[in-house]
């Protein structure tokens, strides 16, 4: 315990070998490096040195790592890959193959009532041209779906944000109302569609209430504008909770201090919200819009149960039209082309929606 060692002796275990050879691998060349207990027998000895001596400046040897047997390493990796094979086969069979087949199909004039896909004539981009140039019903369905998306998402956003802001305060029954407001989101679309179909019947509850307060009831699902409104109402009722939930969690994660700073600088509550809080919320808003927009493009069950796209085609959305093409008219090739166009369109839409907030979403830290 009396020998005065360098204070950093425990950091420089690998002294050069006595014969001056430069140790290649401290783990094998210097047996003492393996065993930490032999490094500093007088580990507690104290020496305060003036300028760091040469020994102090020597870089510490890297911690000893047993050289890895390459085979033992490789084997689990092969095994691991082997175990993913079933999953890969499944995804190949049920996802990738059908996708490729459908893509091929969309370039043919195949119909299951006529021949097999192999015998179908290859028509190139004819289906796509037909859809974009001549098929007014498809273009209308696309525009209608977009209009449905814009109206219902705007309403859902406004209502969801209002609710979320209200839920930042404390009030009686907050817990109960929180659960209650989230419930619609958890109801199956089919159930929602059927329920609202009943509500909007000519002799349904909505008209009955209108009668009670002295108003004449209307044929909700028989007039094109009202039927569209019914779809919007159903959609808004069903999915406002999602906006509410996403925006509430966004609001709760807004840091407190910028808000306090704005208050001290004299901003009114309105200014604080729109100038300070909302900009921080933008990525969250964008994500909510993307999630919902993708859903609205695919909207099917509710519209199918409410109106079947009617009256006429006044509430026919893209997916409803594609469904009719494929399973009513058996124009599977044409339907596949429509589906691929829709997919491309929604990819572009998502990209555009995310563009303004991509930086904010991607940047890490502040």
């Amino acid at each position, binding site marked *: *315990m*009396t020998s*005065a060692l360098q*204070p950093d002796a425990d950091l420089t275990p690998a002294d050069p070998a006595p014969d001056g050879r430069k140790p290649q691998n401290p783990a094998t060349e210097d047996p003492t490096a393996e065993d930490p207990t032999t490094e500093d027998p007088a580990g*507690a*000895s*104290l*020496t*305060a*040195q*003036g300028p760091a001596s040469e020994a102090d400046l020597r870089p510490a040897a890297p911690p000893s790592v047993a050289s890895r047997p390459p085979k033992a390493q490789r084997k689990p990796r092969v095994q691991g890959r082997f175990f993913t094979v079933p999953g890969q086969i499944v995804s190949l069979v049920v996802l990738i193959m059908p996708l490729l087949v459908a893509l091929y199909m969309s370039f043919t004039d195949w119909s299951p009532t006529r021949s097999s896909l192999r015998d179908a004539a290859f028509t190139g981009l004819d289906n796509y041209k037909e859809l974009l140039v001549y098929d007014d019903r498809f273009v209308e369905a696309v525009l209608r779906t977009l209009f449905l998306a814009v109206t219902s998402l705007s309403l859902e956003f406004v209502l969801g944000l209002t609710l979320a802001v209200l839920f930042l305060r404390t009030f009686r029954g907050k817990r109960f109302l929180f659960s209650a407001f989230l419930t619609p989101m958890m109801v199956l679309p089919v159930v929602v569609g059927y329920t609202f179909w009943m509500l909007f019947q000519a002799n349904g509850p909505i008209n009955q209430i209108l009668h009670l307060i002295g108003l004449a009831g209307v044929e909700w699902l028989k007039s094109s504008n009202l039927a569209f409104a019914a779809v919007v109402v159903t959609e808004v009722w069903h999915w406002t909770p999602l906006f509410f939930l996403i925006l509430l969690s966004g609001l709760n994660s807004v*840091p407190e*201090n*910028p808000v*306090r*700073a*704005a*208050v*001290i*600088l*004299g*901003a*009114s509550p309105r*200014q604080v919200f729109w*100038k*300070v809080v909302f*900009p*921080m919320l*933008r990525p969250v808003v964008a994500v909510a819009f993307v999630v919902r927009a993708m859903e609205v493009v695919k909207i099917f069950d509710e519209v199918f149960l409410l109106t079947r796209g009617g009256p006429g085609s006044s509430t026919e959305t893209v997916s409803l039209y594609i469904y009719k093409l494929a399973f009513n008219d058996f124009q599977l090739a044409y339907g596949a082309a429509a589906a691929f166009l829709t997919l491309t369109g929604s990819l572009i839409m998502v990209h555009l929606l995310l563009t303004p907030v991509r930086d*904010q979403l991607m*940047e890490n830290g*502040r």
Partner: protein
Amino acid sequence: MIELVKLTKEYPGAGVPAVDDLSLRVEDGETIALLGPSGCGKSSTLNMIAGLERPTSGDVRVDGRSILDVAIEKRGVGLVFQDYAVFSSMTVRRNLAFGLEVRHAPKERVREAIAKTAKLLGLEAKLDVKASRLGGSELQRVAIGRTLVAEPSLLLLDEPLSNLEAEARLAMRQELRRLRQELGLTIVYVTHDQVEALSLADRVAIMHCGRLIETEKTSVVVERPQTVLVAQFLGAPPMNVLSGFFHEISGRLALRQGGADFFLPPGRLPAEVKLGGGRHYFCGARPEDLHLTSPEKALFSGAAAGLERRGGDSVLDVVSGAVELKVVVAPSTNLDLGSPVHLTVDREQIHLFDSSGRRLPNQLTAA
């Protein structure tokens, strides 16, 4: 002049008040540092001055008038947060303009104020950069500038330097000193870093568990701490404080703690100090004031128990029984663990406190 009068803040369910009966006067143009460990109520005090929190009892007065019912934005108080709280989606220019724009100040005035503040803080080149792209010390300057644009009569700084790296901290400290001189602002500064407090403030108010334990001129607080708590808080390492009773061993005065004796340098204890067991006192000596010496001259002897090298000097632990003293020694000191160490200290460097921890009015004098 800002006056805190018996300021108390209790949070529901906390049991102990976060700020307890705090009274403090800050003169115009003065910089005062609220110094204390985290959770001692410093920030709560600041929030109450700013108006972000309402005191449970007590009053905040500006020039004698209570401002408790004055709206936050009319208090003329600027607050700079530890995390800067800069509006990250805005440019530096919009950040600086915020305080004036929300009050609908004329555009010309906003432009002038931005130009002036940007110049003062060296932000001219960064005016059109988004705040989210700035580094720590730039954000700090934006945060200060944003506050200064609104021309507060009182500037509150909440740990303004603790998120900065060492180098930036040093530069910012200098910058704050310059600002203080140029603008003549009244500043209340919250920090847990004593170096920061001592280097920036005119006076230091030391807080502990929500209470103000000492307010003293910066130059005095280290030299003559008025309480044991302060003595044990200031300095790195802080003062060695022994507690026990004084007695005489063959004509020499000693303080006995847990069976070990610490001899005092030759001198006379103040008249009010009584010798013998049952009389409890505190006796302190700074690690810088203790010196290594020969066994014959030693006032205290123990064994070396640890040595921490700090670059410019080293801190040696000396242990004897239940007594452990820290001594600042020269970096070349060479000692083995367990080897005997002999210490001495000058009479003037002994600090005596009574049993309640208050500094005795009279200290050790020449015999």
